[in-house]
């Protein structure tokens, strides 16, 4: 693939690549720098790209993801902790708290953005990346695992935790609105929440 061909093919996905960069960095300027670095790296190895059904976008995501962690590592002046060591400190102790399941008809979904923003910003970049690939790109677990170079089980556990956090944030919003979400995990036991 020559430069011109690469340019036309890859730049079609600029918005998606930028979205991913933004979710990793949460800073517009850093995201732009990362996108440029990603395209330069991709061009250097473009001749190795092989179409395997998913198009060029997952490949760009993968390079972006790797470039981001190379930057993080350089900034830390040493090897970065792996997934297991990075963990999920802020939520690691409560991944399986009861989850809310309230009456959707009573919940105002039009006003969840602030809560979502707060919850998403509280996630580590790895979790935001999984959320983006799952939620916006609509990728399957296996596809996400390929992009992030982690086992499928890791993708599933990250998604589980991220969704639980978002659910709890929205649960708080629901309670403020006077709704009383039931805990589906405690349903049928003597430990019902919100009642």
């Amino acid at each position: 693939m020559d430069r011109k061909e690469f340019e036309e093919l890859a730049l079609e996905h600029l918005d998606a690549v930028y979205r991913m960069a933004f979710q990793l960095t949460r800073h517009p300027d850093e995201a732009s720098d990362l996108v440029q670095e990603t395209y330069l790296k991709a061009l250097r190895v473009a001749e190795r790209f092989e179409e395997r059904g998913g198009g060029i976008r997952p490949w760009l995501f993968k390079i972006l993801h790797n470039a981001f962690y190379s930057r993080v590592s350089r900034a830390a002046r040493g090897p970065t902790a792996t997934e297991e060591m990075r963990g999920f400190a802020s939520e690691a102790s409560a991944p399986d708290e009861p989850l809310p399941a309230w009456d959707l008809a009573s919940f105002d979904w039009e006003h969840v953005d602030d809560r979502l923003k707060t919850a998403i910003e509280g996630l580590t970049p790895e979790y935001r990346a999984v959320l983006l690939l799952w939620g916006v790109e609509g990728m399957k677990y296996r596809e996400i695992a390929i992009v992030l170079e982690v086992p499928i089980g890791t993708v599933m556990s990250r998604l589980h935790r991220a969704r639980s956090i978002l659910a709890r944030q929205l649960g708080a919003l629901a309670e403020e609105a006077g709704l009383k979400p039931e805990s589906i995990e405690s349903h049928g036991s003597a430990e019902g929440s919100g009642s």
Partner: protein
Amino acid sequence: MHERHELISMVRQAVDGELSAVEARELEARLDRDPELRAFEAFEARLREAVRVFMADEADTPADLERRVRDALRSVNGENAPADPAPRRPRWYVPSGLAAGILLIIGLSVAVSLTGRGWLTPDGGAAPVERLADELAERHDEMIVSGPQASSDEAQRFMLDFLGWEARIPAVAEAGFRLHGASILDPARDWGAGFHAFYQEPGGRGLSVFIFHAEDAPTAIREQLREGVAYAARLTSVGDGRCYLWLENGRIYIAVTGAGAPESLELAREAGLPEGEISDLP
């Protein structure tokens, strides 16, 4: 009977379209009897949609970014390619035997059970084997690397951590080889994620053993292999090089030999290797 947390996981997989037809039917029957779980399913579906809308709209691409990227790409095409910002880290290595495409025969001096009599002929079903060798060489600089003098125990943990499965890492000390490093193969290929153990002997010869989960291997290869029998195959495009394959406890082992001085990690970085996921074995 599923535990509650299992049901939650199943509901989420159902929302994500990740359940098999059988699992989906089983869950649907359960949802019909469980209004709270049904409400949770509806909530999860709505949450996914909310995340989609929010994250898709959260960040607009800067207006000048496309022009900036185009300019950068065109500068690479000219004489002023941007310098690689990554610092050199020579203590990590990519073994260059395969990367350089230099594969040599060392035959049965490699004491790793290459005792079978099978031979994959170069026509018909054997073609994937030959392509594999080329593909392995191509993938070589996309791998996580480590060394020198890796510990077998550490490599074993490394395998489990990154791949989620285990396999015996061959000990080839009798042939004079010592484990030099371990790495994870790019999963975005036909064989899925794999493990690579790289050995060297004092004379500089290299040996690479690639280990894949048999279920991930192409059917054309898997169906030809019998447990406990090793096969040899010719390599294409690399002269008279050879590789050896065998099936062992549900894993496919591929041993190839090579020689050459290690190259720095820079080559790996060119492919966007995540430095953060490099595991430096003691």
